């Protein structure tokens, strides 16, 4: 059972509809107790880093989420802001984030049109079960003003160019996260969700 974390600033229903289309068993979760019933977790997001973190703290989800991912080692997928909050610090609202993956989140250069909104190509830097059926250079849908910069290049699974080459898929142990909206990237995005549902880290 995949738990899709449903917090105020998120778009859990869209992820739920995508999993429904794929016939993958899932439920939306918004209380700490429900996390225990799930053997995989997705943290979706459309919002701002601070609003997301505040919302997760207000629902008292941060500690139990960390326990499921770190103590129990269940597969975890972050999407969009669900990728950005995994790092140590975000320039957005100058907030300390979850710190599960070493690195920071930076704002795109103002010389660019920001936010980046649209379909951009994702170049895979290595093999990973979650991206096994995603073609190298395939297009995915991005909506972001900030991008993650992992401290360890070994954590970069996919890269995308928008003024800079930035990390569009990060992977570390039982954690994987996409900067693009896998649930809104057409059939290629659905392949990532399928890959995640079958992944045994």
């Amino acid at each position: 059972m995949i738990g899709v974390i449903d917090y105020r600033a998120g778009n859990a229903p869209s992820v739920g509809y995508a999993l429904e289309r794929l016939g993958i068993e899932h439920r939306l979760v918004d209380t700490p107790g429900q996390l225990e019933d799930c053997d995989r977790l997705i943290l979706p997001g459309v919002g701002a880093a601070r609003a997301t973190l505040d919302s997760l703290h207000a629902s008292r989800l941060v500690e139990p989420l960390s326990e499921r991912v770190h103590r129990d080692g269940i597969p975890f997928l972050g999407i969009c802001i669900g990728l950005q909050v995994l790092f140590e610090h975000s320039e957005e609202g100058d907030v300390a984030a979850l710190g599960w993956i070493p690195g920071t989140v930076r704002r795109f250069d103002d010389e660019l049109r920001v936010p980046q909104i649209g379909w951009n190509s994702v170049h895979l830097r290595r093999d990973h079960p979650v991206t096994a059926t995603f073609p190298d250079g395939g297009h995915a849908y991005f909506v972001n003003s900030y991008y993650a910069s992992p401290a360890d290049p070994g954590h970069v699974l996919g890269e995308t160019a928008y003024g800079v080459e930035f990390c569009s898929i990060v992977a570390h142990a039982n954690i994987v996260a996409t900067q693009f909206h896998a649930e809104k990237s057409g059939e290629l995005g659905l392949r990532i969700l399928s890959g995640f549902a079958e992944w045994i880290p």
Partner: protein
Amino acid sequence: MLTKRLIACFDVVDGRVTKAQQFQDNIDVAPAEELARQLYDDQIDEIIFYDIKASAERRKIDLETVRRVAHHVFVPFTVGGGIRTVDDMFEVLKAGAEKISVDSMAVRNPDIIRAGAEAFGRQCIVLSTQVKRVGVRAGIPSGYEVFIDGAREATGLDALDWVRHGEDLGAGEIVVNSIDCDGTAAGYDLEITRAVADAVNVPIIASGGAGNVDHIADGLTTGGAQAAIISSILYSPRLDRNVGVRELKDGLAARNVPMRPYLP
């Protein structure tokens, strides 16, 4: 490379997509859910859904239709019409939208843009504008004025002043919808589209008037837009021939406009 986007626009009345001409005389096209499913299968890049009567009728948006459409659309889905508060936005996001479009309500209460961006992020708030060429005059230095409520009410706001203000308040994208060109299939108003693209730093969406692939290419190049809203060309019963997404994308690629490739 970031590609340009083709966005299908749904003007929804009672759960059905309709097609207007210069914001009037809406004729019926198809149930929103059915058209959404078909366009997703045709690999449209994005869908915008306007509940076009919600604002004028001072009622809440038709969430049931939003939910039904969201079930079939695994590309971005923006929803607008009758959004007055952050709670309204929250309900629409929970129904399955990623982005919220504000238009007339934002003119009445510009703070809704700021509050929405603060709650959900700038990228979530699309400012849609209805603009009309009125000529340069006092208070309207660009010669384009903002209208609201289905193009019926003039606001006295200059189009460029308004979009700059909207960007400052937190809008993450701006739709430039030309009242003069809407439903004419004679091409976008490239002059105001370009002027808005030059005035702000957020992505711009050209809207109103696309009748063929050359119009779309012009909007995305000369007009400086990052995305093009299309509707008549896809499904207006008023046109002799409708064109599918694939043919449009092939035509744009042939004109060197970068598009998301069509998946076989």
